[in-house]
């Protein structure tokens, strides 16, 4: 008995402590402590059930809510706890769900709604896991569901439904895969033939081309032998080699145009159709589940061989240097593929420095010069800032041609727009020649109507916005007393640390670093900067001010970030404080009993802390009193007083009869 009393001292304060909080969850440490305490002692468990039921009766939804959370934790774990609590389940439900009209849930309404929904959820959970063992749970569930018609979340049902849906989806996709596999099985031989034929043709084309190449190469070598003695200089030799290499590439001309055309066509076919379809089949084969694994493996092997072959051919084509069509730009239907192939095209262009890219570059350069003529101011302003953003491959190509590179350096990068559509041509446009018939009832159509070039240029005039160059303002970064560096970003002078000067990582000024004393250093730095300030021209200051105004947006963002950091820091501090408090409590609880002076101290601490907490709990309850409320309150008071007086006098004898019916 003594032991029981002793043990009883332990769980009760723990639970009270745990429920005495404004948080939306039970402090995990306390919960753990409660579980540990209760696990090994039935006495504690009984006491815990009793305490929790008592707490449930408190007139505060927050307390009830936290108790409910603890109840759920214990309910799902201990059988004894279940059997105790099940006896009072109706009471528990009344207090947590608040289905009785004369017993609504208490004050903070926001918490009350959470409490109710949580209680309903828990009841459902309990019913699904322990309903078989406890008639009371079944009854309660049934009552809430069928009599009161409360909405249960039906978690399990939902989960099952989702599972079912997913399974169906999987089945469907499997079915589709199977179908694909079947068609693949049927079509494979014909496809194989087709691909093989294409590859063969490409190879033949390449052969024709390379034959010529060899011829030319031979001649070049002869040349080389002849001229060997003439050119000794190393640089010259290098240049020559380069040019030779350039010449190695077969160039398209009138006589081999047919071959090239065929090659291009075939290449396109190979890359856009065969390669993609082969890859698709491979993925289908990998994903599909069929019983005949051997067949699948063999097919997979075949397909992979094909893919490798195709890639090989592709590479060969690229190496051969024939001008290859830019595949995706040839009007493929899918936009995504356009995006996707972009990189590939570039690589092709890069590897094969053939006629077409050159042409493209030239046209680009030309257009840029045009742009300069048309809009010189834009060009000039943008040129320097954007130069280094030119695509790498263009630059590299530009290296080979000094004139072009020079031009490129000057060329502005235009933003994309419709004005680029008819950039170069400076001629009139026929208005009514769009491939459509405009003969209609509106009258005769003048097919020779012309829009003058000036008008076109006017329509296509591209506007560009002036963009201010962004400047990063250096932080002051003077060492702070509490450690760290000053994060202020001022243009010239920090209001706390004087002028902004370059400093190293620890905050020491870099300029005056050689002198020994820090104070003097800063002083000299200050003087220096002052001087510099004097030197600074007014003009510069004005410029800076303008820039400052422009950068205000940036500053704002930075400020917001700073604020966020501050808030975060405050939160961290609070968490730390709380952790310490909890640790202290845990330590107190774990010491055996509240014996002696220490115990008294602990209790005192606990009481004081609970007092301070209770304030917060109470503050949750406190309603906001308006003037109207106060008036009505006063009115009510007088009315109520009258009523009670009347009632008291009236009910006197009735009460007497009720109270002493057995006395006579």
């Amino acid at each position: 008995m003594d032991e029981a009393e002793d043990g009883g001292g332990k769980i009760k304060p723990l639970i009270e402590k745990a429920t005495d909080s404004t948080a939306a969850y039970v402090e995990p440490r306390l919960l753990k402590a409660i579980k540990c305490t209760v696990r090994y002692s039935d006495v504690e468990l009984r006491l815990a059930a009793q305490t929790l039921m008592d707490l449930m009766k408190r007139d505060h939804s927050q307390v009830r809510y936290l108790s409910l959370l603890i109840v759920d934790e214990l309910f799902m774990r201990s059988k004894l706890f279940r059997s105790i609590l099940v006896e009072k389940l109706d009471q528990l439900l009344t207090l947590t769900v608040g289905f009785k009209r004369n017993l609504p849930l208490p004050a903070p309404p926001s918490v009350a709604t959470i409490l109710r929904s949580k209680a309903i959820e828990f009841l459902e959970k309990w019913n699904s896991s322990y309903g078989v063992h406890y008639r009371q749970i079944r009854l309660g569930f049934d009552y809430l569901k069928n009599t009161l018609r409360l909405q249960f979340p039906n978690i399990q049902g939902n989960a099952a439904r989702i599972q079912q849906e997913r399974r169906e989806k999987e089945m469907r996709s499997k079915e589709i895969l199977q179908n694909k596999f079947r068609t693949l099985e049927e079509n494979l031989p014909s496809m194989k033939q087709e691909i093989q034929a294409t590859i063969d043709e490409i190879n033949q084309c390449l052969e024709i081309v390379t034959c010529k190449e060899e011829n030319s190469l031979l001649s070049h070598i002869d040349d080389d032998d002849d001229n060997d003695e003439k050119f000794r200089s190393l640089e010259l030799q290098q240049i020559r080699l380069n040019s030779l290499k350039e010449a190695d590439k077969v160039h398209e001309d009138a006589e081999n145009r047919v071959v090239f055309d065929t090659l291009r066509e075939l290449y396109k076919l190979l890359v856009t159709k065969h390669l993609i379809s082969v890859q698709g089949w491979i993925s289908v084969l990998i994903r599909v589940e069929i019983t005949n694994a051997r067949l699948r493996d063999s097919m997979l092997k075949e397909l992979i061989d094909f893919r490798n072959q195709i890639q090989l051919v592709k590479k060969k084509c690229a190496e051969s240097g024939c001008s290859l069509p830019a595949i995706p730009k040839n009007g493929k239907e899918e936009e995504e593929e356009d995006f996707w192939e972009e990189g590939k095209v570039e690589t092709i262009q890069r590897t094969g420095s053939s006629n077409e890219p050159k042409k493209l570059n030239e046209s680009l350069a030309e257009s840029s010069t045009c742009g300069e003529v048309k809009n010189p101011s834009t060009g000039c302003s943008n040129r320097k800032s954007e130069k280094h953003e030119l695509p790498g491959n263009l630059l590299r190509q530009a290296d080979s041609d000094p004139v072009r590179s020079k031009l490129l350096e000057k060329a502005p990068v235009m933003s994309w727009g419709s004005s680029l559509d008819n950039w170069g041509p400076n001629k009139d446009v026929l208005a009514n020649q769009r491939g459509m018939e405009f003969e209609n009832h509106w009258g005769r159509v003048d097919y020779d109507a012309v829009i003058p070039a000036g008008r076109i240029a006017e329509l296509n005039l591209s506007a560009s916005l002036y963009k201010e160059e962004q400047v990063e303002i250096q932080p002051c970064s003077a060492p702070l007393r509490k450690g760290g560096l000053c994060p202020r970003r001022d243009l010239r002078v920090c209001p706390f640390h004087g002028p902004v000067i370059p400093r190293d990582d620890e905050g020491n000024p870099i300029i005056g670093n050689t002198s020994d004393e820090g104070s003097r250093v800063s002083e000299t730095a200050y003087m220096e900067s002052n001087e510099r300030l004097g030197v600074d021209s007014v003009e510069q200051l004005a410029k800076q001010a303008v820039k400052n105004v422009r950068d205000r947006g940036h500053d704002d963002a930075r400020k917001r970030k700073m604020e966020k950091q501050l808030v975060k820091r405050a939160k961290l501090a609070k968490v730390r404080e709380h952790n310490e408090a909890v640790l202290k409590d845990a330590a107190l609880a774990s010491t055996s009993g509240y014996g002696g002076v220490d115990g008294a101290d602990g209790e005192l601490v606990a009481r004081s802390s609970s007092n301070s907490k209770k304030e917060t709990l109470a503050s949750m309850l406190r309603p906001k009193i308006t003037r109207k409320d106060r008036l009505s309150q006063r009115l009510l008071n007088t009315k109520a007083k009258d009523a009670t007086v009347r009632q008291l006098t009236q009910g006197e004898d009735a009460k007497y009869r009720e109270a002493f019916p057995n006395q006579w």
Partner: protein
Amino acid sequence: MWREIANREAGKTRPNSFKSRVTSGLSSDLQLSNHKDIVSPHRGSVNSLQVDLTEGRYLLSGAADASTAVFDVQRATEYEGGGAIAKHRHVFAIDKQHRAAHKFAVSTAIWYPIDTGLFITGSYDHYIKVWDTNSTQVVMNFKMPGKVYRAAMSPLATSHMLIAAGTEDVQVRLCDIASGAFSHTLSGHRDGVMTVEWSTSSEWVLVTGGCDGAIRFWDIRRAGCFRVLDQSRTQLGRRLPVLRRSMTNKKKTVTGNGAKQQLALGRTPGKGSVKLRMHPGLLSTQDRATAHYGAVTGSRVTEDGMYLLSAGSDSRLRLWDIESGCNTLVNFETARLQTSKPIQMATSGDSRLAFVPCMTAVKAFDLWSGETSMVLRGHYENVNCCWFSSQDQELYTGGNDRQILVWSSSKPHEDVSVAEDGDNWSD
């Protein structure tokens, strides 16, 4: 348990004491039965429950949605949870779809005491109907002057087939099934009659309790009521002391009133006894006596027919000695009772426990000391009726939450489910 059986085998204990020991053991720890569910088809509060008196197998329930249902409490219709839970669905139910069904709430449903071929329902639509169980058709209709609160048939009757009906009306009517007419109209109450009970010791004696707070005893062979219980006439203990009784008997024989002693219920000697007999209409002073302040909402005669337990809207329970007509002054612990509706109480077979619906709970009182021995909580709304089946030692309760709950001793059923339902400490 086994030792007791061995004792009985050896003849050390007598059959009666053995039986009473077993039954009291079973009935003293009733719990909500997890193994027996009665699936209620009712959509309104259950107002009346009765297990048939012949087989102890069929439970008849009447509910506020004008429906009546019969359940087989011995054999389950289906099992759930791996055979752990036996579900008892209704054998048949009569609801408003039935052509001859009641229009309003069924307030009482009782079995014909001789067999299960007939049952009787009374309803707030002013009708008492007699049903054939097998064809579920109405065989007889009695139109009453007001809402029917309670109907009763004598479990002992051999010479009459009367249904006593307590209604909104002040008169108690006895409906004769044999003729299909009202055979008696008993007037005396000054307000509606909420409870009607036949004596369990005499087939002629009827006990009625009214909204005027009076409990009246009627001998149906004579006109008028022969006793009105008065809460101020009391006796301490179960019976009058033997000495006084024998003395009074002697007096009676001296005065030559012995003939009257042959009545099944002896008259208590007293001042007014002579006048009583001379004036069956009673003296006005005695006629105005009340058993409760307020309405009498429930009454129950113990199985031996010697005591009457009554409940009133003053939230009191009183135990009356029927023979003397005195309040025995058993102090039942305070309990709040439902006041607006008649309640149906039950007593255990050995008259040791009284089961009383107290709002949402059913309380089991020790009949002789008045102490609460059990509080059975399970209903979520007020409980209206309970019935104790002395054959199974089970209690059936019905309430406003539309449920019919079974309460039984937990002892015989400690089996499969225990293994599954264990502790689950993960940390």
